[in-house]
């Protein structure tokens, strides 16, 4: 198992490099222009000067090598320096990945935004799994019962109604009419006492609920299908005929096995937490990583788009490996030796 993991990690390196090249090529070849969104009153000569100052007109290869150097050498060195408090020689001349729009290091902005994205998207994901698994299992166990019918209906609604609609509905109901929850998320809020914790939970309520609805819908359908499959297997009949209690049959035998694919699904979706929730972040002004990526794409901010999408890509590759390894651990039939 250890050998397998190491082999997978090593083969991931060329994959990641190829991905970085493809992302860079796609972003660079797109016709977006970092000066494209500037007001019409700015003359073309000034635009040209801005592009030159940013290095936007450099040849493709130069820009790519620069980015590689900044991302794989300068950024890690800088990270070591700031965490350990030491200074390497040449520290002042080192150029980090700099955003064209904000003129600040991209990594710092990501770090600044990660907390709100993790709070909102992460907790909705966590809640979603907590609700989805029991609902899915029970729906499968009592297939075609009232609970299953109602659950299926609710989940179909959660799955098919887009978040921008539920988000607006929530704002109209809970902010405008009832005035229970704020519609503007305060990212500067620091939780220090009970009162600020309440405020944090209050402002998280609407975005988290909207996202949880969606995650729960998806996850519980999956759990239900997987549990249904297992409940019809021969070993369940064997377990019952042995005289085991219904509780043991379902919880020990059926659910355990049914959750193997669900765990894989959960692992594969974890990178999505870091990617944020584009629309929900926008509606509630959570201003996390998703919103940052959107602004960067609109503004033709190549270093930012490249860095953020590349980090997603790395996370996807890593969690794919994690999912495969987990599979091996959970399912004794799967061996990697």
């Amino acid at each position, binding site marked *: 198992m250890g050998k397998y993991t190491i082999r997978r990690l090593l083969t991931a390196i060329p994959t990641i490099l190829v991905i970085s090249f493809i992302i860079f090529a796609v972003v660079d070849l797109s016709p977006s222009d970092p000066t494209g969104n500037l007001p019409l009153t700015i003359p073309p000569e000034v*635009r040209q000067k801005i592009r030159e100052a940013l290095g936007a007109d450099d040849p493709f290869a130069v820009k790519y090598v620069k980015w590689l150097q900044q991302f794989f050498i300068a950024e890690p060195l800088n990270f070591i320096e700031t965490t350990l408090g030491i200074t390497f020689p040449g520290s002042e001349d080192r150029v980090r990945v700099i955003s064209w729009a904000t003129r600040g290091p991209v990594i710092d902005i990501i770090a600044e935004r990660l907390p709100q994205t993790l709070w909102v998207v992460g907790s909705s994901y966590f809640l979603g799994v907590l609700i989805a698994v029991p609902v899915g299992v029970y729906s499968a166990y009592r297939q075609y019962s009232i609970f299953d019918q109602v659950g299926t209906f609710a989940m179909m609604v959660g799955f098919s109604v887009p978040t921008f609609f539920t988000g607006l509905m929530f704002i109209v109901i809970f902010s405008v009419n009832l005035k229970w929850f704020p519609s503007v998320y305060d990212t500067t809020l620091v939780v220090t006492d009970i009162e600020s914790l309440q405020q944090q939970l209050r402002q998280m309520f609407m975005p988290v609920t909207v996202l949880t609805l969606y995650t729960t819908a998806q996850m519980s359908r999956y759990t239900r299908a997987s549990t249904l499959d297992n409940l019809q297997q021969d070993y369940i009949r064997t377990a019952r005929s042995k005289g085991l209690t219904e509780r043991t049959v379902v919880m020990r035998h059926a659910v355990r096995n049914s959750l193997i694919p669900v765990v894989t699904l959960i692992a594969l979706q974890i990178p999505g937490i870091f990617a944020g929730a584009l629309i929900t972040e926008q509606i509630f002004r959570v201003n996390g990583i998703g919103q940052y990526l959107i602004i960067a794409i609109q503004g033709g901010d190549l270093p930012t788009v490249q860095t953020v999408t590349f980090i997603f890509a790395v996370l996807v590759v890593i969690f794919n490996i994690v999912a495969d390894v987990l599979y091996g651990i959970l399912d004794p039939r799967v061996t990697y030796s």
Partner: protein
Amino acid sequence: MKKFTVLLIALLALASFAGIGVAQEGDTVNILFWQAASHMNPYLGNGTKEFEAAALVLEPLARYDPDGIMVPWLVDEIPTVANGGVSEDLTSITWTLSEGITWSDGSPLTAHDVKFSGDFCMHPDTGCTVLDQFANVASIDAVDDMTVTINFDVAKPFPYGPFVGYLTPIIQKAQFEGCIGAAALECQESFGPIGTGPFMVTDFRTNDVITYAANPNYRVMGQPAFDRAVFKGGGDAESAARAVLETGEADYAWNLQISPAVLSAMEAAGQGTVIVGFATSVERLLLNHTNPDPALGENRSVWMADGSNGHPFLQVDAVWQAMSMAIDREVIAGQLYGAGGVATCNILPGPPIYASPNNPFCGPDIDAANAMLDEAGIMDSDGDGVREYMGIPLRVSYQTSTNAVRQNTQALIKQWWSEIGVETELRNIDAAVFFGGDIASPDTYSKFFTDIEMYTNGSSGTDPETYMSGWRSDQITHPDNSWNGNNVVRWYNEDYDALLDQMAVTAVLEDRASLAIQMNDMLVQTGAIIPLVYRGSVSAHHNSVNGVAMNAWDSELWNVAEWTRS
């Protein structure tokens, strides 16, 4: 596991009901911009958001008031030729700073800071976005600590480009010295400039939120009335309007370009007030003065000095006049723009002294338009509902950027034109492509490969000289200048060029105004462009905030120091 879920939900519910309603601290002013500021350096600004975020902190030497009139800000008086501040030959202007103005860190504001601000922008490697404000500046000299002279390399009848208005405020030399030139690319100081204004930055989060505290060294006692200001970005215009007008979570929301019906319904809730400021933005139709026929190949839409590649019919007076007259501008302005637009027949509708009084009426009168075409002999001879001019049917292609209001405008105009026998083919193009500079794309506004196109533009300040020189003949877009230029309609008029030359040596405001009016009349009376709607900027403030004075000529937050809470 289920127990835990129940517990969590209960906790959430408990927390949310425990303290109902959002506590409004009486001493914080909450400003909502649905586009978030990336940094606070106006010289590197990407758009209004950066300039406005900086306007609470940084100040120029003089500002414009809501009527477009200059008011001294960090100086005691505006330099003019009459008071000796502007040289007789119009090549230099000398500003004298007011006594006793300090930065928020307590150090004095000096002429060296002013000089540095200009040098910062004019450094070739800075990539300054407001460089055109410093057009023709040869040098800036700090004569002494309080006096700064700006020298121009030509006679500059309107020398108020640099350091007047929110685009070019004064930044502190001591703070930004290390950021000039190429170093501006990664200038960390841009996230917290030190300023002379009513507020100072305490926390900056890129593209998200800026927190300010009142500047203890602000020159006016008792101002600002607020202890804190919060400048929150992100979201969309509609929810920003809702946060001010319906939920009262914010005190001020910027740029609320949303459906007039929705906005007025929100305002009816009685929590806030919608405010509008008009500058010079005009939504206009541009009539192609060259032939955009694809069959011409390389010569498509290419202007020829001998006038040989002109448009087959759009320059015929009866045709464009009838097309202009068929349009009901009141309907477009009222139904689609609401408070944010009024019908106009001028291409330069403001400031008031520059607005031409000579074009009071330009439609709608469909019958008169039809009569005009009949009289000119432009008839529908084959009975297909489309008139022909010299055998060419009046079929036009009409492009604009993708935007709900613009597509509705297109649909209305297409209908009106069909009533006068002009057939219209509509196109809309993504804004990033339409306004982009991609030389390979046939769909840019500057190539203008259709008969008619529509967008908004306006003068960037109160003085219209730069704006009006956009129709000079040397500004005609052409393959030779990579389609770069402002004369997108490719209109050629020697008399107009002569008026511009005259304006370049005229310093007296009234004379400049009369020249601008003549130019405006020439443009709209010869069919270079058809103005449609005079567009204002729409914002809203909560009714508990007093003293908001909407300003379209300067920062909307220009007088934030005077805002109070009732």
